[in-house]
Every structure is written in C-alpha cells, then in structure tokens.
C-alpha cells in the first residue's frame, strides 16, 4: 500500500496555476526527487503534505489520512538555516524537540525518550557534538542534527526541502546517505525537493518534475530527457549526461525566479 497518495491535485494562487491534475504515489522505501525551477510549487507541495496549506482541488493522503488531521508523524528536514550563535540549545535538545516539542507543558524526560534521542544522535554520527551549543556548530553538523530531529519520532514519511543547500560536497553526501540508510532499513519513503538532482541521482527511484504549469513523473531515465523537458517547458531543452551527472541546458529558469515561493 502506498504511503502517499496524490490525486488530481491543483494549486492556484490568484489566477496563477502552479500545478493542476497532479497525480503520483509514493511506495514504502521509495525516494522521489522533486525537481524544477523556482516558483513552480515544490515547497508548496511539501506544505500541502505537511497539512500547512490547503490545495485548491484534489485529494492527498499520507498513510490513509488527510495531512491536516496529523494522524502520523512526518519527518521534515528544511533548508539549512544557521542558528543564532548564542541560542541556549544543544544538539540533543533540538533532537528532543522533534520528539515532544509540540506537546504542552514542561514535560518529563523519560529514560526511554532519552534513549531514543541518543539512538538518533548516534544514527547520524552526531554524538560527539550533541552537548555543544548548536549555534557554534558548522552548517553540516547542524544539518545532521536536523536529520536526527526528523528521524527521532519514527516518521511514516520524510520530507526534505533543499536540505543540501549551502553544504559542502562531503556534508551533502553525508545527509543523502543518512536519509538513504533510513529508507532502506525502515522502509520510510523520502520526498526530496532539490534544484540539483546530481547529489541524489545514485539513490533516486523516481523524479517528479514541476515546470511552470506542467509536470511529469517517472524514473530519471524517463523524465530527465531532452524530449520530456522540451515538452514540459514548451521550448528546446537539452539534457546531457556528462560523467554520470545530469546537465540541463536551455531552461528559461531565470524568468521564474522570485515568484510565488519567495512569498511564504
């Protein structure tokens, strides 16, 4: 049974249509990369799956339940946003917030919760710096802690929104490997929003490509082709494979920068 079901999903902002008739499913253990230029609704799609944004039309279910009802835990790894240098928070506190930060009250830290936090820290290799103030860690270390925070509550689904942005190559690989390891060990599907498919190309099962007003879903070999992208963009686009990397040439990306997604 699929973990995510999206049927005839549409999203309009005013008279702008970000996408319409969107339809895909996410199976257990699957990694779906969401690609496309800015302003095509990649982040909005995540917000719909998180239950933070109502779609204009269509049906969405996460493990058989509308996202707004929050029946299930969803792990969310955002873009790297540097913490304040002085914020009084350690890595392990950040991870713990992923477990019970939404609950009322002061909360007792039960031994089994402490063990889960420790396990998550160990899983992402952050034990050594788990007790340091988070604002004084490097961006890559902070992002590992974010992954631990997303994994600690045993989510049914992991959503990652450009989690590799402003990370160096070694840390990019580290974050991708962590998410990949969890989906293989626990079968947790991952929806991975990125503007660059290459860091995840070796592990991605399918690609959802959102172009302005049109979309396509399929394996990388089906979607990341000159023919498909030319059809999506309505203009000549070339997809080249160079040394195992995908290079897309000729997309009119620049015209779509600074549109809707920057408004959130």
């Amino acid at each position, binding site marked *: 049974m699929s973990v995510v079901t999206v049927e005839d999903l549409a999203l309009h902002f005013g008279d702008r249509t970000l996408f319409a008739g969107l339809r895909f499913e996410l199976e257990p253990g699957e990694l779906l990369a969401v690609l496309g230029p800015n302003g095509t609704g990649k982040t909005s799609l995540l917000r719909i799956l998180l239950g933070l944004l109502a779609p204009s039309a269509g049906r969405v279910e996460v493990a058989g339940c509308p996202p707004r009802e929050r029946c299930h835990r969803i792990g969310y790894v955002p873009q790297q946003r540097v913490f304040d240098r002085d914020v*009084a928070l350690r890595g392990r*506190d950040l991870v713990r*917030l992923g477990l019970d930060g*939404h609950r*009322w*009250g002061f909360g007792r830290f039960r031994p089994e919760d402490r063990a889960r936090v420790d396990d998550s820290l160990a899983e992402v290799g952050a034990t050594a*710096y*788990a007790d*340091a103030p*988070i604002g004084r860690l490097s961006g890559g270390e902070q992002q590992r802690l974010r992954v631990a925070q997303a994994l600690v509550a045993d989510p049914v689904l992991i959503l990652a929104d450009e989690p590799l942005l402003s990370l160096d190559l070694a840390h990019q690989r580290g974050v991708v490997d962590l998410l990949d390891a969890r989906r293989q060990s626990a079968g947790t599907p991952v929806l991975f929003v990125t503007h660059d498919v290459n860091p995840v190309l070796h592990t991605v099962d399918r690609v959802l490509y959102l172009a302005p007003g049109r979309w396509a879903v399929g394996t990388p070999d089906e979607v990341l082709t000159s023919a498909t992208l030319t059809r999506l963009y309505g203009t000549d686009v070339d997809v080249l494979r160079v040394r195992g990397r995908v290079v897309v040439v000729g997309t009119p990306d620049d015209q779509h920068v600074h549109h809707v997604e920057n408004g959130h």
Partner: protein
Amino acid sequence: MFTQLLAEHFVHTALWAGAVAAVVTGTIGVFVVARGMSFAVHALSELGFTGAAGALVIGIDPVLGILGGSLLVGLVLGLLSLRGRERDSAIGAVLAFGLGLGYLFFSLYQAYANQALNLLFGNILGVSGTELRNLAIVGAVVLVGLALLYRPLLFSSVDPEIAAARGVPLRALSVAIFLLLALTTAEAIQVVGVLLVLALVITPAAAAQRLTGRPTLALLLSVGIALVSTEGGILLSLAKPWPTSFFITSLSFAAYVAARIVDWNRGRQSRLISRPPRRTWAVR
C-alpha cells in the same frame, strides 16, 4: 543603621517584591532573548508608562493603566507576529507615538510629576502590602502560563519552521508570549521602573545564554542573576542612599559583562590548544 533598616517592614516587602519580579522576569527573559524581542520589551514598558499617565488623567489606579497599555500593545504586536526588521520598524513607530502621548498626559497633570518619576525609574522601597499581593498574583499567572506553554514556546522560539510543520500554532503562541510579556512588564515597572525593565527581562537572560547551551540551566541561571541583582540592589541601597534601580541595573549589567568575559575566555583557551571551539564544549 543598615541592620536597623533590615528589620523594617517596608524593607521586607521590598525584598519580597524584588524576588517575585526577579523570578518572573528571569524566566520569561530566556524566551524573549531567544525570540529576539528585546525591542518589544522596550515598547511594552514605555507604553505602559503612557497607560499609567492616561490612568492618572482620568483618575484611576495607574497600575491598571500600565496593565491596560502593555496588554493592548502586546496584543497588537502578537497578532501582527512580524519578524525581524519589519517588526523593529513597526515597534519603533508605535513607541514614539506612545511616548509623545504619555508626555502630553503628564503635561496636562503636572501635579503627578513625582509619581511619573517613580514610574519611569521605579520605587521598590515604596511597594505596599497590597501591591506586593497583586505582584504575586500577576507573577503566578505568568509563571503558570509559561510552564503550560514551555515546550511549544521553546520549539517555536528556536526553530519556528519545524515547529509549524509539527502543528505548533505559531500565531497563537506569539500572542500568548506577548500578553505574558505585557503582564511581566507591567509588574517589573513597579519594581525598577519603565526605563529599567530591560535590566530585569533582557540582561539576566542574555548573560545566561552566554554561559550555557542547556535550555533549563539557562533558565535557572537567568532567574539566579535576576534574583541576585534585585535583592543585592535593594540591600546596597540600604547601605548607601543612592537609587535602588541604579544598583539593580549595575549588578545585572556586571553579570552580563562577566558572562561575556567568561565566554570569550573559554573561546580563547580552546583556540590556544588549537582545536575548534566546539570540541571543548563537547568534552565539557
């Protein structure tokens, strides 16, 4: 002289009032600092002054005016739930107008000049038994509120994006923290006065977060620094007849400077043994 004063009833009342104010301000301070709301504290306290002035003009208890003024502003700022620069300029605009209004009220009723001075700079040695009781009630409300909201408040303060994704109601929390802050400010005004509220709400928490990365330890340190500042300030002002508020702000500022020196020294030592600073934190 000093020991005689220590036996006086009004001194005991002052010490209790200082303790209540310190616990409440030290606690809410850690959230205020984490959310970058220092400027909002300024606005709330100065518009509390406007409220007090307005209350005197229409002949009601100025404390009600302080409460009304800060709560109104707190509600508006909380509902706007602005971030960063936009919030700064909005607060600046409201604050300037409110101060002007307060000045008008006082120029209309100059007979209250002394009371105005007390509201601006505080008069903790003049707190009455009834005022102490009211302080304790307001303080208890704020502490209970903060205890109930503790985890979502911490979550939304340090990590709003993830907190929202987890279903934490950011706007409701923003309104709640502003209202609790308004109550706290109204309370602290009576102890250290409008212009010195920052000394109790911001400075101890800012010092505490320089000293530790543990949220609960930061809270305890913040309360501790606020307590030492107020109680120490009151005692010092018994020994030397300078304004109590001066001693309170001096002590809390000294704690802040000391915390920065400790933090700087820690960073320097870890650089001297040529490791990245975070490693020494990890060993600690």
